[in-house]
């Protein structure tokens, strides 16, 4: 039996579809077309909202740094946070631009490569955010107490306590990665938790990189099937 013998059956099925396949136009108008427009608006709205939230934070942190430029113990944690938020904004803008420029009618291999590269970038950023979270909270505490309450975290908390928290944050990182690798696949009842854990463990990133590699192989002349 050959693929061309089977092709006949496929085309026979095609003729039957010509006679029997019907488009449910009521459902098409009532649900699909309306929802397609709504979801597009929602996606843009979500990305813009994210940027609108980040902008005042960057401005506020910039103003905080300017006010405390002579006090590096306050200015440096604020600078660290500011760089972090600006990096997130940059990533958001890049995704917004990339999404706007993406044409779903591009050739399959080109579009899948572009989509997967963007996905890899997002997964790397998510992993970085998740890993950086335990370290970020100490600068947030220092800047937040000073900025909102006028309190000096260095005077309230022992220096050793603050240093211990930074070290604890560093220790939490490998522990979180180990837990994610071990338990991500067992979280089938909580897809969101499972996804976060797989992002942290790097499982999703590895899968995306594998697919990108298989796209390149597919594109190569005479690659093995």
């Amino acid at each position: 039996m050959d693929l061309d013998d089977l092709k006949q059956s496929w085309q026979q099925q095609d003729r039957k579809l010509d006679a029997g396949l019907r488009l449910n136009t009521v459902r098409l108008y009532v649900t699909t077309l309306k929802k397609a427009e709504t979801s597009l608006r929602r996606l843009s709205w979500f990305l813009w909202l994210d940027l609108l939230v980040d902008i005042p934070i960057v401005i506020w942190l910039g103003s905080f740094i300017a006010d405390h430029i002579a006090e590096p113990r306050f200015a440096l944690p604020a600078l660290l946070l500011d760089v972090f938020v600006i990096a997130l904004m940059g990533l958001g803008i890049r995704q917004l631009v990339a999404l706007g420029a993406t044409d779903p009618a591009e050739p399959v291999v080109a579009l899948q490569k572009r989509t997967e590269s963007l996905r890899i970038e997002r997964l790397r950023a998510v992993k970085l955010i998740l890993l950086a979270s335990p370290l970020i909270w100490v600068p947030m505490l220092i800047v937040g107490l000073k900025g909102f309450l006028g309190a000096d975290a260095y005077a309230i908390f022992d220096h050793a306590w603050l240093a211990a928290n930074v070290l604890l944050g560093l220790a939490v990182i490998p522990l979180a990665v180990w837990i994610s690798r071990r338990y991500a696949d067992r979280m089938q009842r909580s897809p969101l938790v499972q996804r976060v854990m797989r992002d942290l463990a790097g499982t999703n990133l590895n899968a995306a990189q594998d697919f990108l590699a298989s796209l390149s192989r597919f594109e190569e002349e005479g690659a093995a099937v």
Partner: protein
Amino acid sequence: MSTNPRQDRFLKLLDEHKKIVYKVAASYCRNPADRPDLEQEIVAQLWRSFGRYDEAYRFSTWMYRIALNVAISFYRAETRRSRDTVPAGDSLLEIAAEGSGETDGNLQILREMIARLDELDRALVILYLDGNRYDTIAEILGISESNVGTKINRIKQRLRRDVARTA
């Protein structure tokens, strides 16, 4: 039903080429219950992109590209995105009983063979079985024409080997 000429034109073209949506969705859904969701995602994406459709291209080429891109992404998604879709059960494409034709044994073999292929070879085989020429397949997938020929031949050889092994 619509007073929008753009929607009417879209509906007319979609109706003429609805088999593409049906066959791509049927070939990429491991679970048949997911098929209506994939059909809906494909049609929604076609509608979103219809404003950018360039008449210089054949509608079927444009439609294959979008349908295959959506299907590959859908196939690769870790979780079903149910937020933007209506639950399965009420399908966008319906087949009359006399039109199903799923009793053909060869078709069953073909479906099983397609299911064993990865998402890219699957796209290639669907386009080949639909009777597209190598240059059209190359245009849709974005690879060279000679590469299409090489891959089709290798898939054919693999199928022969599989059939021989089963026999």
